[in-house]
């Protein structure tokens, strides 16, 4: 690498010229972007369909696109102000699971593509980064995949979320275990080992569990609690510690990839716990493919399940299968689908494409035929919904049953886990 210093004067003006050219090349690129106009309603969608969160991001995208497809088949959304139905146009960006990029792309959609709202933000970190933008551009943003309540605690006025808060997930998880104890399947006073993802999501999950345990003394006590970093290739150190803690129940809170990696190594340590959960992950097909029977009896608290006994859930599952060729994998597609439906309802109520008017309607919109547990979707004061969780358990033969709450259950909880 020699000889890169030479007389700068010869080519100096040239390189400056190059710089100008490059800048000029940039400008038209950013100037463009669909000036949506009045023929269609542009909606931004920013999700990770590559990178670590690719799979769930892809499922969420499919959910949103299914909703858009169905809306457009009905002619679009009726906008009173214009006196006609307008079709929805999706402006999609892949953030590659990178938080700085996701914020930039949300900003791009909001400022250059003339969208009335943006959907997206899968996973807490990406959602946190994106949540800065909506108020700056006064454009509603609905996260369909970030649940940590910190996102909604900063007083932002344009952000909404179709996932119930994670502390409720932790709380429901503990509540479910409590009900299993009440049924006499597990003993009282069992020891819990917690492994939490090192994010707000994990913190909230742990808080939820603690809250229930404090409200119901005598059921469980936490003997081990440690955080782990998402995206590690090796959890053997953590699992070794879990093993040494000799707990009865192992509760982790992980993303899909981490769940697969961790459970694989869990099996190799020859541990046994009476119950195992990886938080909101458990029934995914990918996990089944990578781990086989080792996923049996794992239970998960999730925002939605295809097993919910509502007619609209059956319809949705069939439509989703029709458009993608596979049944919905866990909850991802449903919350995204509901996010788009809620947005469409708000636009229709607003009767205009004014973003603030749409925001105002999102605050009061109510879907009474919702897919989500409880069948009612309504955004709370901070913008986040608060539907209950369902607990599902994997059973042999690729079966998944809702085991809690009792009114939605499709099967009995199997506890303790057979050896």
């Amino acid at each position, binding site marked *: 690498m*020699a*000889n*890169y*210093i030479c007389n700068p004067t010869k080519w100096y003006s040239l390189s400056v010229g190059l710089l100008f050219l490059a800048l000029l090349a940039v400008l038209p690129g950013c100037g463009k972007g669909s000036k949506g106009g009045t023929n269609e309603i542009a909606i931004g969608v920013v999700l990770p369909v590559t990178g670590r969160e690719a799979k769930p991001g892809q499922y969420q995208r499919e959910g949103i696109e299914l909703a858009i497809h169905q809306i457009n088949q009905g002619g679009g959304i009726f906008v009173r102000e214009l006196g006609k139905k307008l079709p929805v146009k999706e402006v999609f960006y892949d953030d590659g699971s990178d938080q700085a990029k996701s914020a930039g792309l949300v900003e791009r959609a909001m400022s250059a593509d003339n969208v009335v709202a943006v959907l997206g933000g899968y996973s807490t970190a990406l959602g946190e980064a994106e949540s800065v933008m909506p108020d700056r551009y006064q454009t509603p943003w609905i996260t369909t995949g970030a649940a940590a309540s910190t996102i909604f605690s900063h007083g932002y006025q344009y952000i909404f979320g179709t996932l119930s808060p994670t502390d409720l997930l932790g709380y429901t998880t503990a509540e479910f275990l409590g009900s299993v104890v009440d049924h006499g399947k597990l003993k009282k006073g069992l020891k819990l080992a917690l492994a939490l993802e090192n994010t707000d999501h994990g913190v909230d999950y742990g808080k939820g569990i603690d809250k229930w345990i404090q409200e119901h003394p005598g059921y469980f006590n936490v003997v081990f609690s440690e955080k782990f970093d998402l995206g590690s290739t090796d959890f053997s150190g953590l699992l070794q510690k879990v093993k040494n803690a000799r707990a009865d129940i192992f509760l982790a809170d992980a993303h899909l990839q981490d769940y697969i990696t961790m459970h694989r190594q869990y099996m190799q340590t020859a541990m046994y716990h009476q119950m195992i959960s990886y938080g909101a992950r458990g029934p995914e097909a990918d996990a089944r493919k990578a781990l086989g029977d080792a996923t049996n009896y794992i239970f998960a608290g999730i925002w939605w399940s295809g097993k919910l006994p509502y007619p609209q859930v059956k319809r949705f599952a069939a439509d989703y299968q029709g458009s993608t060729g596979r049944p919905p994998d866990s909850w991802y597609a449903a919350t995204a689908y509901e996010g788009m439906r809620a947005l469409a309802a708000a636009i229709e109520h607003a009767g205009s494409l004014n973003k603030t008017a749409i925001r105002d309607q999102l605050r009061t919109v109510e879907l009474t035929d919702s897919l989500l547990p409880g069948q009612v979707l309504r955004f709370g004061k901070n913008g986040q919904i608060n539907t209950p969780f369902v607990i599902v358990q994997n059973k042999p033969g690729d079966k998944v049953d809702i085991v809690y709450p009792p009114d939605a259950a499709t099967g009995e909880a199997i506890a303790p886990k057979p050896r």
Partner: protein
Amino acid sequence: MAPILSIDRVTKYFAGLTALKEVSFDLQPGGIYGLIGPNGAGKTTLLSILAGSIQPTSGTVVFQDRNVTGAKSFAMAQAGIVRTHQVPRPFRALSVLENVEVGVRFGRSQGSAGDLWDARRILEWVGIAHLADAPSVTLSVGDQKRLELARALATRPSLLLCDEVCSGLTEPETASVLRLLRKIQDAGTTILYVEHNLKAIMSVSHHVIVMNFGEKLAEGSPEAVQSDPSVIAAYIGRTA
């Protein structure tokens, strides 16, 4: 007269091997000293220690009444000891003039104003002023050796350490480099000159130090050394 350089029992081990063993001698200001010895005698090791390129295991080096033992090479250069390399090592991305400028600006002079003129004058002095703006890589071997000398002189040394400045040069080139060394000595710089070419070194030095197997074998005037039986034995012993 106080010696300009005085080394006392300088010893160097490399990974358990003894490269130098308790070498001591003094240099008086203003002379050309020859340092000779068979291959592996420790000449270049000693030169490197004096230049600060490597640090001695034990012993002391006193330069102009200052103890400089173990100083790094840049500190040596700033104190006034500077070396040249057997194989010239020009800064390839820099022009000949810029190469010399490095010496001017960072050597003992730490020059600032008018130093450029200095650099040019030095180039003139060693006879490559016409190449000042050429990239240093384009120089012939002889000119590279001159540049090596010019760069070293630019630091305004009191003691110049030359490592085989004549190796790889033709007869006439060698003669002209030796003339240059005398010129440098005339200007008041002491020279310690390591050389393989016995003829060259005997012709230019007024005092010769002979080394063998890491130890000082003998020193004295060229004539005295040449007739020293231990020196003859060392050289013949090696070649036989």
